[in-house]
């Protein structure tokens, strides 16, 4: 069901003038596995068709839910929203006059339990992104999809693609098998750091762990809202495990995480660190300093309060103008007012940082 309310999906805001803009979260969807066939070895093509696998759908976005797709973002010729370059050009690149857009493909590799098959699918998705998105459209950049469940294979896949200038990021699911700071994931960070790639943590993952610290909720609404808690735990894990001590050049981008929860988390985390530091002695600065230095967050969904002033105050509480990266989260439908794009009342230099500068400093464009 599509929301039948009168919708006014805004585009580029007039107050931005000609300012530079980078959209740091544009979702591309694979749809049927047939799309990937040209990029899979014959062995895997036959394996898929002979076992009847048509698609890998983790149900992260219920097809009909009003949040899942902007009206008009699904191609008339069939296929899911976010699967058509022409629409993406019109609705993202042209509409927002984006200098770059970063593609994040949420193809749920983490739902695959066979490491070899997972790698084959990841490779296919990456080659598909390179051939069908990056090659024809110079404004696009993409994220490397990896089998995070096997970090050695994942690192090899990163190495394979690292020379391709179109890839700027490596994707990890926020709902992972283990907290992402754990050492088992470090080969992935080593590879990302080696190649100047950011690590993006996206709002997905099918690890089998319950999505909340108290088990499985009943509703999709809860599932989606509680993603922010999964992100909070990953921030705590990455810092506590010393990932940024080990990989000082690493940048991590939280994608579709919300960000208004971060000030409170930093306060709580810093307070605990002052007393429990000896447990994680490699964390040699207050966690908030590490977070501000290494972490970036995309702006959508903007969990805005009724009063814009409160959102401005919360952004100021972050204590750093370099953390937020503009995003539309296309084709997800996250806003229908200008205030839902970015709050009015930001200082212009902060707004320009959010629109482009922060992204240009984060990604190897």
């Amino acid at each position, binding site marked *: 069901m599509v929301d039948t309310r009168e919708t006014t999906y805004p585009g580029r805001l007039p107050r931005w003038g000609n300012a530079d803009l980078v959209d740091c979260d544009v979702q591309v969807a694979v749809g049927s596995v047939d799309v990937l066939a040209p990029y899979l070895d014959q062995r895997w093509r036959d394996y898929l068709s002979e076992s009847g696998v048509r698609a890998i759908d983790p149900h992260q976005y219920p097809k009909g839910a009003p949040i899942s797709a902007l009206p008009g973002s699904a191609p008339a010729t069939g296929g899911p929203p976010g699967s058509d370059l022409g629409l993406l050009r019109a609705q993202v690149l042209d509409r927002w006059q984006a200098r770059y857009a970063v593609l994040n493909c949420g193809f749920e590799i983490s739902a695959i339990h066979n490491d070899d098959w997972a790698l084959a699918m990841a490779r296919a998705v990456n080659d598909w992104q390179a051939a069908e998105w990056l090659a024809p459209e110079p404004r696009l950049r993409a994220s490397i999809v990896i089998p995070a469940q096997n970090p050695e294979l994942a690192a090899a896949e990163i190495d394979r693609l690292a020379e391709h200038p179109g890839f700027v990021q490596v994707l990890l699911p926020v709902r992972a098998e283990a907290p992402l700071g754990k050492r088992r994931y470090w080969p992935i960070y080593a590879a990302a750091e080696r190649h100047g790639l950011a690590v993006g943590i996206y709002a997905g993952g099918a690890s089998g762990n319950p999505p909340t610290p108290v088990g499985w909720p009943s509703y999709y609404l809860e599932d989606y809202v509680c993603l922010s808690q999964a992100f909070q735990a990953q921030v705590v894990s990455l810092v506590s495990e*010393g990932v940024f001590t080990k990989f000082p050049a690493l940048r991590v981008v939280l994608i579709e995480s919300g960000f208004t929860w971060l000030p409170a988390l930093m306060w709580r985390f810093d307070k605990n660190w*002052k*007393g429990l530091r*000896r447990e994680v002695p490699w964390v040699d600065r*207050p966690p908030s300093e590490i977070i501000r230095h290494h972490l970036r967050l995309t702006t959508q969904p903007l969990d805005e309060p009724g009063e814009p002033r409160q959102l401005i105050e919360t952004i100021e509480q972050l204590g750093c103008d370099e953390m937020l990266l503009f995003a539309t989260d296309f084709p997800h439908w996250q806003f229908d007012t200008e205030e839902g794009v970015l709050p009015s009342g930001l200082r212009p230099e902060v707004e320009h940082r959010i629109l482009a500068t922060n992204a240009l400093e984060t990604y190897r464009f």
Partner: protein
Amino acid sequence: MPKYVVATVDEIPPGQRKIITVERRSIGLFNVNGDFYAIRNQCPHEGGPLCEGVLSGLVRSEMPGEYEYVRRGEIVRCPWHQWEFDVRTGQSWFDPAKTRVRAYETTVETTTSLATSDADLVDAGYTKGPYEAETYRVEVDQQYIVLHL
């Protein structure tokens, strides 16, 4: 700077401490390998009785998984929220520049130097501490810890 005779050396063996009250201030006296240090017994955070906390060492690390355990017996952890302070300087470990507790100078002095008349002591800048005269006048070979407030 008033000075107070606050304890005998024998009272505080290495690794031990004594909490004293001087001028209505609670102060912790620590013997670290034969050297005596004094810090205020009030944590700069929420006012916990800092000197009653665990005396431990410092765990440092350059890299995850590597632990360097140093200065054992020189770090007191506040009994409340576990902030770590260097008993020798009063500096906190996590924020040495800004978070510190008042540290006081101490000296060890012998009976002979103290066992003269009160007038001499006052002249020398001493003030009567909790140790009354009979303690240091009777025990001829005793050594005293003197706190410089």
